């Protein structure tokens, strides 16, 4: 089926609408329209349009509906529109989209389906189309799952193309010419005699005519901006301290607040704030739910006063110590209740009974998101409205939850989504925003910026869950014959949905994502997910299930290759049954100059592969054993994202994702004691630092479908490093973080 046909099936029509002083182009909904952000400004009788382009007398505005957490998606989205519209993205105004259920994300839910991403058969494709339905019901405007690029790729270019052709039509009508004789350049329609009519002068006329929706998207060979080195629109601001993040917002007469909450699920039993109330700069001390909040002249005063509050609490009725949590995971494996078994090729039990299986058990810890900008939200609550400034990945959920909390109608709530100082999945949560609203509701009309201390952030994260996996397998000189992997984890999906909406029924495929869906042909091959009890709230952490499963699967394949005396990179290539993935592995062999795992005594290389979010990604890490510990010398990564829309940024995401994965594998864990993580700041959670960062080389391929790259660089990093350490030292690291067993230089 043609791409245009698919778009029609998905329910998109690109069209236009008159707006005050100009015209908007975007995606029309047919059927029952979803709430529209611009309906308030449209005359009666108009229906809903999700605008991506606004043109008025002032200029051209490109609207990027997906949030920017630092991955640069705002400029990628703008460039997609600009490429077809013929405006220079560097000179256009770029705005984040207002909150609208109509900006739903068709791509993110597709990743939860039980079809391997490399499966492009009719059933898998049909199911991906069907996911559109629950996604529509949910009305997702969500940024996550590396979905911004695939979700935007056609929609935004179509919006730009329809806008361009409609503006040409408006010019043709005005001048008595034929549209096909006109062209466009630099924000203007060019007439055959060379005269240029700026789009801004055609906006009101364009709003009066039927949009030209029969458009052909330009071939990539014609692209002027996409695929070429672009300068991110925020790069000057972010290099000069002039970028305003949520925490930098300053409103007139604003006060500051901070909170100290009891462990999640706990209850306050007593609270004595007498001393805190007497401290300088303190305006109010409040109990908000199971937390104490201080409103003060500065956030420093607020944080100081919080320390002076005597807070006693009762523990939640769940396991709150790390040992108990490990026990619950072991129990889930031992009991063997199957949550999912999405891969079950051949007969693993029979095959394993036929030989001496290699066995291994792996563990990964809880991991904090800990983006560098602490959680914050600025809120003003009035009798009939509420205004919120915060950085969030889920604006729809923010509005609906604030409506529930305040009793205000949704259209009385204005959310200004702010530039985010990182997220890694943390800003999929609503906790800090709800706290800020509750605080501001205590002082109506008063704008209050609530910001967490770093300790609050570490101790009240919903982390990546700790997980345990067991592998059994057989290999001979022809390759891996049998591989059985069992993974135990609480359900991130149930935990998160339970907080923001309601937990869905059925298995949680993210428990084995990054393991069951790998493109390898192994005769007897089984991957089973076992759902462990939810001991502490858990959430999506950059690359979600694949962050753990990449390590389990990638490490165990390496152990099997090693047992059979097979070169691990050649073994991966030979076992791979997906062309796009195999090309990635072959490119990595060339890029890394692979000649085998052994370099010389004390040095070694490791390789690992993981396909996540539809992106095959393979990485090689080289290490040296030194008297100061293991030193990471060089790291290489190759990924296939179909079409590289923004090469400078794509390289940054792949390099950054790999280093993010390495740093956490080496140095990071959260361990729980009495329901609270013991790590309270970066001194105990070092991640990657400059001195430990290896030299990096990355390469991007374009053989598969268009995909995003925010996450896929993470999963292969930990196993590539573990496999390199084995090559250099003979030691198998089966438990993360690696600093539990060894030192790094």
């Amino acid at each position: 089926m043609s791409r245009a046909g698919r778009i029609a099936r998905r329910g998109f029509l690109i069209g236009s609408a008159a707006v005050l002083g100009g015209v908007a182009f975007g995606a029309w909904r047919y059927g029952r329209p979803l709430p529209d952000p611009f309906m308030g400004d449209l005359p009666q009788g108009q229906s809903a349009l999700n605008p991506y382009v606004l043109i008025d007398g002032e200029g051209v505005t490109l609207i990027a509906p997906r949030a920017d957490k630092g991955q640069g998606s705002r400029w990628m989205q703008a460039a997609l529109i600009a490429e077809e519209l013929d405006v220079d993205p560097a000179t256009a105004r770029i705005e984040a989209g207002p909150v609208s259920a109509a900006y739903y994300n068709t791509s993110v839910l597709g990743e939860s389906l039980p079809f391997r991403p490399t499966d492009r058969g009719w059933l898998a494709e049909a199911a991906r189309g069907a996911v559109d339905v629950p996604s529509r019901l949910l009305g997702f405007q969500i940024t996550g799952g590396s979905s911004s690029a695939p979700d935007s790729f056609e929609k935004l270019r179509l919006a730009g193309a329809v806008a361009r052709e409609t503006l040409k039509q408006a010019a043709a009508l005005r001048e008595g010419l034929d549209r096909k004789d006109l062209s466009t350049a630099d924000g203007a329609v060019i007439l055959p005699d060379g005269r240029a009519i700026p789009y801004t002068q055609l906006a009101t006329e364009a709003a009066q005519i039927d949009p030209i929706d029969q458009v052909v998207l330009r071939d990539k060979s014609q692209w002027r901006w996409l695929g070429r080195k672009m300068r991110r629109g925020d790069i000057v601001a972010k290099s000069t301290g002039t970028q305003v993040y949520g925490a930098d917002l300053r409103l007139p007469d604003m006060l500051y607040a901070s909170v100290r909450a009891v462990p999640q699920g706990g209850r306050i039993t007593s609270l004595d704030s007498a001393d805190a109330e007497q401290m300088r700069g303190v305006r109010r001390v409040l109990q908000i739910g199971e937390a104490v909040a201080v409103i003060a002249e500065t956030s420093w005063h607020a944080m100081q006063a919080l320390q002076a509050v005597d807070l006693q609490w009762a523990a939640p009725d769940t396991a709150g110590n790390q040992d108990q949590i490990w026990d619950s995971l072991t129990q889930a494996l031992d009991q063997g209740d199957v949550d999912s078994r999405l891969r079950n090729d051949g007969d693993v039990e029979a095959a394993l009974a036929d030989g001496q299986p290699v066995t291994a058990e792996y563990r990964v810890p809880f991991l904090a998101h800990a983006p560098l900008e602490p959680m914050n939200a600025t809120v003003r609550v009035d009798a009939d409205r509420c205004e919120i400034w915060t950085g969030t990945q889920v604006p729809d959920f923010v509005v609906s939850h604030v409506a529930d909390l305040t009793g205000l109608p949704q259209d009385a709530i204005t959310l200004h989504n702010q530039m985010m100082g990182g997220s890694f999945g943390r800003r999929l949560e609503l906790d800090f925003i709800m706290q800020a609203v509750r605080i501001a509701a205590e002082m109506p009309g008063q704008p209050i910026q609530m910001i967490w201390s770093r300790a609050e952030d570490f101790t009240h994260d919903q982390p990546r869950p700790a997980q345990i996996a067991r592998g059994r397998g057989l290999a001979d000189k022809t390759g891996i014959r049998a591989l059985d992997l069992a993974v135990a984890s609480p359900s991130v999906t149930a935990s998160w949905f339970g907080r923001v909406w309601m937990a869905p029924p059925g298995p949680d495929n993210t428990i084995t994502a990054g393991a069951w869906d790998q493109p390898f042909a192994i005769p007897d091959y089984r991957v089973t997910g076992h759902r462990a009890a939810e001991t502490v709230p858990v959430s999506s952490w950059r690359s979600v299930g694949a962050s753990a499963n990449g390590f389990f699967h990638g490490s165990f394949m390496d152990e099997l290759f090693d047992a059979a005396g097979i070169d691990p990179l050649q073994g991966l290539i030979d076992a791979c049954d997906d062309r796009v993935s195999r090309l990635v592995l072959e490119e990595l062999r060339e890029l890394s100059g692979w000649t085998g795992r052994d370099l010389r005594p004390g040095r070694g290389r490791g390789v690992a592969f993981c396909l996540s979010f539809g992106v095959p990604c393979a990485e090689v890490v080289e290490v040296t054993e030194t008297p100061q510990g293991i030193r990471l010398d060089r790291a290489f990564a190759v990924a296939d994202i179909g079409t590289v829309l923004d090469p400078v940024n794509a390289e940054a995401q792949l390099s950054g994702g790999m280093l993010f994965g390495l740093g956490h594998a080496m140095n990071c864990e959260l361990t729980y004691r009495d329901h609270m993580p013991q790590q309270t700041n970066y001194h105990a959670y070092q991640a990657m630092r400059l001195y430990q960062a290896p030299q990096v080389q990355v390469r991007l391929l374009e053989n598969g479908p268009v995909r995003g790259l925010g996450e896929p660089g993470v999963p292969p990093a930990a196993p590539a490093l573990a496999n390199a350490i084995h090559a250099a030292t003979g030691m198998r690291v089966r438990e993360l973080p690696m600093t539990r067993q060894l030192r790094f230089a």
Partner: protein
Amino acid sequence: MQVTVNGQTHDIDADPQMPLLWALREVLNLTGTKYGCGIAQCGACTVHVDGMAVRSCQLRLGDLNGEVTTIEGLGQPQALHAVQAAWIDHQVAQCGYCQSGQVMSAAALLMLNASPTDQDIDRAMSGNLCRCATYPRIRAAVHDAARRLAGS
């Protein structure tokens, strides 16, 4: 109390126990300097006091003795410092929240060491945490900034 920031002297009414970081961000509204950890572990709050890199979250106003330069005083979008120009050309930033501190640490390093090696850079800048792990571009941009300063 008087503090001199970016060449301008301010009379501020603040607790001498308050760390400089909060005075910059929430009293003077100079928000280019960031709060990340509050315990000198992330470097996002790095400023210069008389040209030396200092973690402003640890320097109490009462102990401040010298002129403060923040990222806003180092250079502006229309008048970039060499380090900022290099940071822009190498497109170092991802989320960008740590980069004010990175730029200030790099600028202080280059005042002391005009042509640092990779090792010198690692030593001087490992206190600046970047959660996005932009480190390869940070190294490249510091070398580039050193060349620009040598050429100017």
